[in-house]
């Protein structure tokens, strides 16, 4: 609260009064009874100066009475004064008395029979002469510290108003003008001091009340204002000042906002409603000078009439924006709370369900180590059922002890998590239940421990699994060992096979070598036999007779037969030893047929058969083993000639329907082969006539070799024949890639 009427002015006026009195004492003779006496004048001045320097009532009065003793010769005196608001005259100063005799001297102004009270009322100087204790005068004497001695009583008055007190002094001397002046001066001073005293006391009280009021008003968070009817601010509390008062130092924006608020307020207060009803209630939108935001207030204004200060308007602003927001906020919060509560409940229910559905025991322990939550599996371990057998209870207690020691270890340590083994017993049947306990601390955001959550995991299954695993591992190891053994076996057999293959290869090589050697060794003597026979036939050693010539011919032909047998055996051996590899080339069938016929020219000429070739010149070039095809054709053609006594042999070549296929057939008009013998003729050493005296030469290996060669080149030999109607041997070649 702010004071708009400073108190100090009144004090200044009072000082001025005293100074004026002093000046009067010095210069204005009208108030001075001792004009001629200079020492008295000086004494008077001294008194007045003494008064100027003193403001305490007792001090001032004592001084005055001392002055009276000094300059007026009064040996005993006292001064009574009535303080404002009091009903007694009390001693405010004295001279010449012992302090103790005065301490309780006071006169009630309501005691009208007391002469002192009457003197104060009638304002007249009164002298009480000395009396003896027996005189009836006593009754009209007031009781004073003067007892029975003579004393004067002078009412102390400053003008027309009521006296401020009494001056009482002892002695019988007449009242001089000096004493009267003294009384007046003292009265003035006394009145001044009493007034000041009264004022200052009132002021203090008022000031206290005002500060209390100020504190109360300031404590109100709503802005409270007192304005004059024009809307000018007279009093404002702290909250209101933030809205309506801005000092020069504050920012322009804030001052602008404050000016705006003042304008809005005065326009609101100047409305007619307030003039008519003396009160008003309306909404007022103001600007928050701090941040420029809008503030919605409810303005409650009441007109106050004051005789001294005139009409004012008291306004209280209530922040309805805040209220509305707060209401909404509260509703919203309530709704959220309800929702959260519902969610929490549902969550808790779900959590309970989950926790109970977990097969592993779960225990929640609070920070002191006592259990606050258990799921069903945990209860089976740690909670006794009603009517449980003593052994069962003991087991539960033992379980509890085991788990408690685990938890206390956890609580004592700084570990956030702990994994340990807890060996419990099934309370129902006493079966050992080894558990793996996993405990985790639950901390608040401030890191305060709220709970320990422990999950026990039955290790029996794990142990069982470990056993199973061990067995499995053993089985697997066994299997592995067996596989190793088998593998080693296989490797050994492989090695054996490899060695055998190597040996076979060596044997094969030896066989080949043997064949080669045998061939060589056969040929060498045969060479001599045939050579000499030929020489004899030619008559190198002289002419020979016809019978010997015939015998030599037999030797030569048998030698030749032996040679062909050797050659064919050699061929078969080479084929079987794989020493006739496929050697592919491109060649023309007509050329090949020509070559074959040329090679057999001598036999053909001897046979006198007609050889017909039916080979188209434009027959496709084929890709095959030329040497082997040639050998086959030589064989087939020589066979045909051999087994055809008369007629013809036809060699025909045809492109087959299949792609890149050519068939070459040799058809004769010879003796033919019975159909049941068509397969036998391809077997080794099979000539249909096996008798020693058979009509046709040959080893019986020719067709066998042909078929083998055809196999090598991927071809095929077929026969069509009937006894007596000739034969057709056909070689079908596929075009080798």
């Amino acid at each position: 609260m702010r004071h708009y009427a400073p108190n100090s002015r009144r004090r200044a006026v009072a000082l001025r009064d005293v100074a004026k009195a002093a000046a009067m004492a010095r210069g204005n003779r009208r108030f001075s009874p001792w004009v001629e006496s200079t020492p008295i004048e000086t004494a008077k001045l001294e008194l007045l100066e003494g008064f100027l320097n003193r403001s305490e009532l007792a001090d001032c009065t004592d001084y005055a009475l001392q002055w009276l003793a000094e300059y007026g010769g009064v040996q005993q005196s006292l001064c009574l004064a009535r303080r404002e608001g009091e009903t007694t005259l009390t001693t405010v100063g004295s001279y010449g008395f012992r302090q103790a005799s005065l301490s309780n001297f006071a006169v009630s102004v309501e005691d009208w029979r007391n002469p002192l009270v009457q003197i104060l009322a009638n304002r007249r100087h009164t002298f009480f002469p000395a009396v003896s204790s027996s005189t009836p005068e006593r009754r009209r004497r007031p009781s004073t510290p003067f007892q029975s001695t003579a004393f004067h009583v002078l009412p102390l008055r400053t003008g027309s108003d009521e006296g401020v007190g009494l001056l009482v002094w002892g002695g019988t001397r007449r009242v001089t003008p000096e004493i009267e002046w003294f009384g007046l001066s003292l009265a003035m001073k006394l009145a001044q001091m009493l007034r000041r005293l009264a004022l200052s006391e009132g002021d203090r009280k008022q000031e206290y009340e005002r500060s209390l009021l100020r504190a109360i008003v300031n404590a109100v968070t709503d802005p409270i204002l007192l304005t004059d009817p024009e809307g000018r601010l007279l009093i404002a509390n702290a909250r209101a000042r933030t809205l309506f008062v801005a000092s020069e130092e504050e920012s322009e924006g804030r001052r602008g906002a404050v000016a705006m608020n003042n304008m809005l307020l005065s326009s609101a207060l100047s409305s007619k409603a307030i003039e008519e009803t003396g009160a008003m209630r309306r909404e007022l939108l103001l600007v928050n000078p701090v941040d420029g935001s809008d503030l919605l207030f409810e303005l409650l204004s009441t007109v106050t009439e004051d005789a001294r200060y005139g009409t004012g308007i008291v306004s209280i602003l209530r922040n309805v924006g805040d209220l509305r927001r707060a209401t909404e906020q509260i509703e919203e919060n309530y709704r959220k709370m309800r929702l959260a509560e519902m969610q929490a409940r549902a969550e808790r229910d779900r959590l309970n369900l989950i926790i109970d559905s977990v097969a592993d025991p779960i225990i929640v322990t609070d920070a002191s180590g006592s259990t606050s939550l258990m799921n069903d599996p945990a209860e089976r371990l740690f909670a006794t059922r009603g009517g449980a057998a003593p052994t069962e209870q003991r087991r539960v207690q033992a379980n509890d002890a085991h788990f408690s020691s685990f938890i206390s270890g956890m609580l004592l340590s700084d570990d956030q998590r702990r994994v340990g083994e807890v060996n419990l017993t099934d309370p129902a049947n006493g079966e050992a239940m080894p558990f793996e306990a996993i405990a985790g601390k639950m901390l608040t955001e401030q890191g305060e421990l709220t709970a320990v959550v422990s999950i026990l995991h039955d290790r029996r299954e794990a142990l069982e699994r470990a056993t199973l695993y061990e067995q499995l591992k053993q089985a697997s190891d066994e299997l592995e060992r067996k596989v190793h053994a088998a593998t080693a076996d296989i490797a050994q057999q492989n090695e054996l096979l490899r060695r055998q293959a190597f040996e076979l290869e060596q044997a094969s090589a030896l066989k080949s070598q043997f064949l080669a050697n045998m061939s060589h060794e056969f040929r060498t003597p045969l060479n001599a036999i045939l050579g000499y026979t030929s020489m004899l036939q030619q008559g190198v050693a002289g002419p020979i007779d016809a019978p010997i010539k015939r015998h030599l011919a037999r030797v030569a032909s048998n030698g030749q037969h032996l040679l062909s047998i050797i050659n064919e055996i050699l061929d078969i051996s080479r084929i079987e030893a794989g020493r006739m590899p496929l050697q592919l080339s491109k060649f023309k069938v007509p050329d090949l047929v020509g070559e074959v016929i040329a090679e057999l020219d001598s036999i053909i000429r001897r046979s006198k058969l007609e050889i017909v070739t039916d080979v188209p010149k434009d027959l496709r070039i084929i890709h095959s083993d030329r040497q082997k095809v040639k050998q086959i054709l030589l064989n087939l053609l020589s066979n045909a000639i051999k087994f055809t006594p008369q007629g013809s042999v036809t060699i025909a070549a045809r492109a087959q329907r299949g792609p890149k296929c050519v068939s070459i057939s040799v058809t004769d008009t010879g003796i033919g082969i019975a159909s049941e013998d068509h397969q036998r003729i391809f077997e080794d050493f099979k000539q249909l006539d096996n008798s020693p005296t058979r009509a046709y030469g040959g080893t019986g290996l020719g067709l066998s070799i042909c078929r083998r060669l055809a196999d090598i080149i991927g071809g095929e030999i077929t026969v069509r024949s009937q006894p007596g109607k000739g034969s057709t041997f056909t070689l079908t070649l596929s075009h080798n890639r």
Partner: protein
Amino acid sequence: MKKKTRNPIVLLVDDYPDAREMYAEYLEFSGYEIVQAGNGVEAIERAIDSHPDVILMDLSLPVMDGWEATRRLKADDRTKHIPVLAVTGHALTGVSNDAKAAGCDGFITKPCLPEDLVGEIKKALARVESADTKNRRSGHAKVKA
């Protein structure tokens, strides 16, 4: 055409006397002069000192085999012009290839009738003659130039 002033000389190399002598008898009968050798080393000696027109070389020989002997003859300036015909009881394909690789000009498989052998010799000599004629002609051409 060069006139024959003497019969062609045939060097017969074979370790098997029956065969060697048989061929020798027949070749002499057929009008050839015969020089004989029983192994590779002798064959080289005879080839150097007898100046044969053709050499019939058996391959399986003691001391030095026919392949090695042929290689040496073909490596020697004095003998490399002489045609060498391998005459062997080895009938396998590989053998004839080896013989050609060693430098043989022809390959005859035993048994070979004496008259057939004469045919082969004639062919070989004819090849040499035609080659000689060619060489001479080209030689004349060079002289003229």
